[in-house]
């Protein structure tokens, strides 16, 4: 790596330098209102604005912005373009950026509520050091120097006593996560733990093993869409959620399989309350019909794929009549849907979804979905599955020190395809608890919240209990922060200058974050935190963090001033407005064979099924129900439930139960119930509704928090993480969250 960071700032007049020069009327804002933020619960921004208008000054409150800032949302993973409307140094409103194509110029409830991350009295304000027992909630305010000295000292102690691998680094995606991962690498631990094995690892694995890439569905132009458990109307994902509706108007048909009647079901042309865990039977039966009746795209299969000949006999027993008994979907409907799908092809998509942490067969289910898309020839055509493209940015190189004698990742060998960057949560945690093959005694956390997101919370608590040291960097007091020894407050996304990020897709776009205001209180961007920490680990580590964000961005756009110019004038950069179709046809795919792999030779070699084989899921015994979890459009994982605006939309989760079962159990709508699984018990209100299969119960994710620092939602609702058993899909290491049976008892 020959290239080093250049220290100079990009040219005068550029967006970055101008932003830095811009002096906000911040002193006045802080002078008046930071006291209010610290001591009194803020009613709304109006209070802030009122505080700004000096008594007797006759200043009339105006809703007209005096300044606008292009930035990009961080309330979920979509990164929608945002224009922040400013008034007197206060963020008044976050508007969608109409130039940002991937969001189709919209901003959802969470995006609009984003300004409350800044002005919420519950936000973290100062570095905190624990004074009581873990989880007791006793803290003292510390200076950054004291807190960082303590963190560096504890990390060194762990490295000295065990090894550098004795520190685990837990993080999740975001524009400043790369600095955390860089720090982990420079510290010398292989043990980074990210979110994918709680989310979509099996999805990426199944589609990746087939296509050599994870394709993007061209939802807007599809005539026929099948969604299995992908609740796109509530778990908003851009642009699919929007295009799913925009594509309507009599032309597009949406078939939706879900044990719940979700908002997506309400928008679908056909909804089938499929028996959970049997989607693979449905897909195999569709394949059985399409292949058996020769409704596939022969030419495409011949030129672009391998393994079709093995597929044909494999499908023989998977008839619609057989599948009907598994899925609770009539055979004639399966056959009809298969024929309609093939007739609509190539503008027909079996949608792969995002989160695929449902069952321990999820990789094979995603493989089957991919194969179904492949045989109808919808690859890289309008209304089909499209390859992702990127915009190339300049690199920021660094050189991590080399340390001798650091062991391999802790869970090496536990998963067929283990990502060295992401790790696999379930086996990793099990191995920490067993100290096998070596102990892990220190935990650095950035933005992730394993106490809410990893199934079987009591195991996560036990894992944290045996740690010598835990430090969490976040913007609010998450459950994980609550159980930490040191909590470091990060500046929110509206207060940070973040690196440019490229959102890959059929039409890739580049976005960045410009700070709307300077960080409130003593919060700092993660890049600064990592830089300060790195300085405490010697010159070699410090060298890798010896740069400014402006220089980092300058390297990203070196030789491409047009990128920065577009970001300055429109808040987004892209090279084309429409997808280019068909460029990959006749070209090599990124698989071993160079073709789309219907039959996976590499799976066969690993002892996994080379073609998806159906195994029936367990059935709940009488009096027990399968626990399902999911999302609403108001919440992102466990992060936004305590947001003042979003909290108003839903203050607590509830347990969905079918009326027939409620009657049988003698439980009334609205009454409080206890939910008991083999690993935990939680209580929450009951919601009796016909919107769910009688053999299942459901709760929204993200409630039942342990942290009293989330003042609005503490003591409200139930945590699914406390109830779900920790099971795993073996190929990708993804957890399987829908395989827990629970009993329902009156509270």
């Amino acid at each position, binding site marked *: 790596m020959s290239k080093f960071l250049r220290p100079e700032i990009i040219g005068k007049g550029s967006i970055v330098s101008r932003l830095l020069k811009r002096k906000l009327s911040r002193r006045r804002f802080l002078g008046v209102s930071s006291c209010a933020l610290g001591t009194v619960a803020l*009613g*709304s*921004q*109006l*209070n802030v*604005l*009122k505080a700004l208008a000096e008594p007797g000054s006759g200043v009339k*409150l*105006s*809703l*007209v912005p005096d300044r606008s800032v292009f930035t990009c949302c961080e309330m979920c993973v979509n990164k929608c373009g945002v224009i922040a409307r400013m008034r007197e140094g206060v963020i*008044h*409103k*976050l*508007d*969608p950026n*109409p130039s940002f194509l991937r*969001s*189709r110029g*919209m*901003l*959802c*409830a969470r*995006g*609009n*509520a984003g*300004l409350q991350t800044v002005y919420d009295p519950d936000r973290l304000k100062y570095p905190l050091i624990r004074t009581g027992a873990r989880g007791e909630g006793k803290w003292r305010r510390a200076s950054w120097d004291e807190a960082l000295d303590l963190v560096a000292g504890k990390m060194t102690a762990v490295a000295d006593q065990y090894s550098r691998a004795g520190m685990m680094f837990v993080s999740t995606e975001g524009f400043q996560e790369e600095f955390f991962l860089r720090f982990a690498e420079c510290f010398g631990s292989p043990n980074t733990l990210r979110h994918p094995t709680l989310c979509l690892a099996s999805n990426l694995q199944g589609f990746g093993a087939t296509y050599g890439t994870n394709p993007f569905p061209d939802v807007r132009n599809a005539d026929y869409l099948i969604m299995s458990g992908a609740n796109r*109307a*509530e778990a*908003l994902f851009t642009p699919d*959620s*929007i295009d799913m*509706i*925009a594509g*309507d108007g009599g032309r597009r048909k949406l078939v939706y399989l879900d044990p719940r*009647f979700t*908002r997506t*079901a*309400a*928008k679908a042309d056909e*909804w*089938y*309350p499929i028996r959970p865990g049997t989607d693979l039977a449905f897909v195999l039966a569709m394949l059985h019909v399409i292949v058996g009746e020769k409704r596939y795209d022969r030419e495409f299969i011949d030129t672009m794929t391998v393994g079709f000949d093995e597929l044909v006999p494999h499908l023989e027993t998977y008839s619609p009549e057989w599948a009907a008994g598994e899925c609770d979907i009539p055979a004639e409907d399966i056959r009809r849907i298969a024929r309609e799908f093939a007739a609509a092809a190539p503008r027909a998509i079996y949608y792969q979804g995002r989160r695929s942490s449902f069952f321990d067969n999820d990789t094979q289910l995603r493989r089957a979905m991919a194969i179904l898309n492949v045989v109808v020839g919808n690859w890289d055509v309008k209304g089909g599955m499209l390859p992702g493209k990127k915009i190339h940015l300049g690199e920021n190189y660094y050189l991590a020190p080399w340390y001798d004698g650091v062991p391999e990742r802790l869970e090496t060998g536990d998963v067929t395809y283990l990502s060295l960057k992401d790790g696999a949560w379930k086996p990793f945690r099990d191995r920490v608890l067993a100290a096998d093959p070596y102990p892990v005694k220190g935990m650095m956390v950035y933005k992730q919240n394993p106490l809410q997101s990893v199934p079987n919370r009591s195991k996560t608590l036990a894992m944290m209990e045996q740690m010598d040291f835990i430090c969490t960097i976040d913007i609010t007091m998450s459950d994980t922060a609550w159980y930490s020894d040191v909590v470091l407050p990060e500046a929110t996304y509206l207060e940070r200058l973040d690196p440019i990020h490229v959102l890959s897709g059929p039409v890739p776009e580049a976005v960045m974050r410009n700070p709307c205001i300077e960080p409130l209180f003593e919060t700092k961007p993660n890049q600064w935190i990592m830089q300060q920490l790195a300085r405490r680990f010697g010159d070699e580590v410090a060298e890798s963090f010896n740069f400014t964000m402006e220089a980092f961005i300058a390297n990203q756009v070196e030789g491409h001033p047009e990128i920065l110019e577009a970001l300055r004038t429109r808040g987004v950069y892209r090279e084309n407005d429409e997808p280019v179709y068909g460029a990959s046809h006749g070209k090599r795919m990124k698989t071993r064979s160079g073709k789309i792999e219907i039959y996976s030779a590499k799976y066969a070699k690993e002892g996994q099924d080379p073609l998806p084989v159906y195994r029936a899921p367990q059935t709940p015994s009488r009096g027990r129900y399968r626990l399902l979890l999911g999302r609403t*459009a*108001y919440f992102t994982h466990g992060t936004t439930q305590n947001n*003042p*605006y*979003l909290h*108003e*939309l839903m203050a607590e989760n509830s347990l969905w139960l*079918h009326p027939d079962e409620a009657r049988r159990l003698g439980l009334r709508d609205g009454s409080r119930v206890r939910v008991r699984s083999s690993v935990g018990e939680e209580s929450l209100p009951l919601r009796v*509704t*016909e*919107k769910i299969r009688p053999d299942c119960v459901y709760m929204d994710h993200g409630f039942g928090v342990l942290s009293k620092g989330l003042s609005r939602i503490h003591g409200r609702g139930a945590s699914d993480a406390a109830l779900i058993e920790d099971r795993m899909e073996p190929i990708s290491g993804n957890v399987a969250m829908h395989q827990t049976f629970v009993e329902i008892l009156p509270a």
Partner: protein
Amino acid sequence: MSKKRYAIVLDTRKCLDCKACTVACKAENLVPLGTENYRNWVSEGRLRGSYPRLGQEFAPGQCMQCGNTPCKRVCPTRATGVGAGGIVTVEDKKCIGCKYCMTACPYNARYYNEERGAVDKCTFCAHRIEQGRLPACVETCPTNVRTFGDLNDPDSEVSRLLVERPYRVVKPEMGTKPFLFYLI
């Protein structure tokens, strides 16, 4: 230039009940926190049918900017008036907080704003319209449920939609002449 008559046309089939409009409105118009305080809303329709044959609709709503205003009629201080473009207004200084207008409104579109000491309601974001920006609820909607425009302009999108598509208004029997039109 002829006088404007603003209206919103809604295609509720597109509504996901995601509440983006509700939060956008609260932020834009500094509506105080609290579930009683709102200028717009999304109502969840009755669940139709029985398992597994179910259906449900969602419908956003807000002040209908009526042509015939029951709120204005009952206001003892003339705090409620009708402004440019037919937008029904409340003048904070004149409002004594008697809440007659809240009772008179058949759409429950008004609330009492404690911070301002006056009744408050949707203004179609008049301050944004003046700047050539769309109302916050219209602009932010992921699926473009709402279309905003001038009904006195025959070439506007709202005029065109009402010519091309069948529509209904809410509670026509009240004779309020609402200017929110719901496409059927």
